[in-house]
């Protein structure tokens, strides 16, 4: 079985920066695995996350060497529409991921962009809302929800694209314990469905659901020994 993610000798530095932020990353993630990447702020966790869905090097330009393969597709050569259906990313701040007036519109946004039929979008909305247990909020304005609920909607909006791989870029950093519990439950369900999950984290309390932990330090992936 091909790995879900295969990163080979990846180097990257942003335009205008002196030093490389990623200095020879080698990483392989099995399909259906939950991997946590931990590390201190500024060590390139989010940069690594952007390389997984092609934001780097396709949107953020810089010096990019090495290869990032997602289910065998090199992100550099894969078009955005295809990547969006392979890798979904949930970011830290729910407020900058939600821009629609209702939860339903928010979840429909991604499939609409990918020209999914109206009937199929309706079906996906129902399935996603059921999975994240937010059916009762279908016609609510996301602005009126709590932080945890907003993050669930952001996750739902990503799930409606039916990606095989999900990346959580410190997605639980701004939410309370109750919200974290809800998101972890959804992550467990997603693993049961065979999804591959990468959690970029700095809070060890969120790592109880992961299969493997690696440390990103000084631009390289290292073995995690319990300390950052």
């Amino acid at each position: 079985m091909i790995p879900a993610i295969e990163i080979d000798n990846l180097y990257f530095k942003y335009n205008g920066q002196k030093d490389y932020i990623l200095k020879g990353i080698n990483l392989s993630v099995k399909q259906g695995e939950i991997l946590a990447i931990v590390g201190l702020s500024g060590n390139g966790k989010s940069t690594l996350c952007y390389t997984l869905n092609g934001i780097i090097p396709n949107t953020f330009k810089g010096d990019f060497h090495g290869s990032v393969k997602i289910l065998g597709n090199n992100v550099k050569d894969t078009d955005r529409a295809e990547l969006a259906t392979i890798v979904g990313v949930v970011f830290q701040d729910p407020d900058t991921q939600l821009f629609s007036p209702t939860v339903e519109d928010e979840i429909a946004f991604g499939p609409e962009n990918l020209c999914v039929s109206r009937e199929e979008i309706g079906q996906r909305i129902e399935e996603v809302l059921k999975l994240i247990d937010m059916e009762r909020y279908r016609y609510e304005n996301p602005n009126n929800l709590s932080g945890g609920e907003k993050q669930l909607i952001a996750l739902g909006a990503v799930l409606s694209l039916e990606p095989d791989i999900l990346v959580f870029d410190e997605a639980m950093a701004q939410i309370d314990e109750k919200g974290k519990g809800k998101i972890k439950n959804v992550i467990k369900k997603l693993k049961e469905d065979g999804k591959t999950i990468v959690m970029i984290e700095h809070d060890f309390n969120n790592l109880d659901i992961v299969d493997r932990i690696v440390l990103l330090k000084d631009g390289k992936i290292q073995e995690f020994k319990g300390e950052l």
Partner: protein
Amino acid sequence: MIQDKSLDPRTKLIIVISISSLSVFIQDLRYLIIILAIAILVSKILGSEIFTVLKKLRRMLGVFIAMIIVQSLFIKGGNPLIMIGKFTLLTDIGIFRASEFLLRISIILVSATILMTSTSREILQGLVEWKIPYEIAFMVSVAIRFLPLLGEELQDTLTAIQLRGIDMDKLSIKEKIKLYSHIFTPVVAGAIVKSQRLSIAMECRGFRAYNKRTSYIKLKMNTKDYLISTASIITSIFIAYIYLT
């Protein structure tokens, strides 16, 4: 009362465009008062929360008053009402024009509240079905969504400054201007970071992946929509005709 949800957003857009166009075209106080009354009536019939919206805009009142004063001061025709020496400060035409401006702004604001009875997604879809590019319509709706957040951020920064012991009321105008120049830098920088994050989130969800897109929302103009749209246009043309003759 007409249930707002039963009207197509395009019908509401036609009503708003008709009323707003009249307010811009007509330069007669009596007509403008009638149009304002019509705008209030239509807004109420369509169930818009007109007074709640206007209450929220009361902070803008100072700006409107300042604009009215400036406008009345710079129009020099007509009979002078207030003079300082040989210098005419205020004329009757100045007051007339300022009142016209106030009425015009009120009509546009009141009629715009009609659009608030639909969600921004519905309005956006209405515009898209009128062949306005989705990206442009979407940009406008996102700007409307994020503008209040910018205001909140500005307020948060001000509060943070006040918590550090700076009493805004005791500052001179010069000091206030200096302070605001310090506030705007982090607020603008924050807005840029937020917009960048937003665009990344949108790209990750396939925004502009293809030249076209589908829509989950389906709009349908029914007989009532056609009747109201036609009535709006005919009434506007009729008022304009009476005004011109």
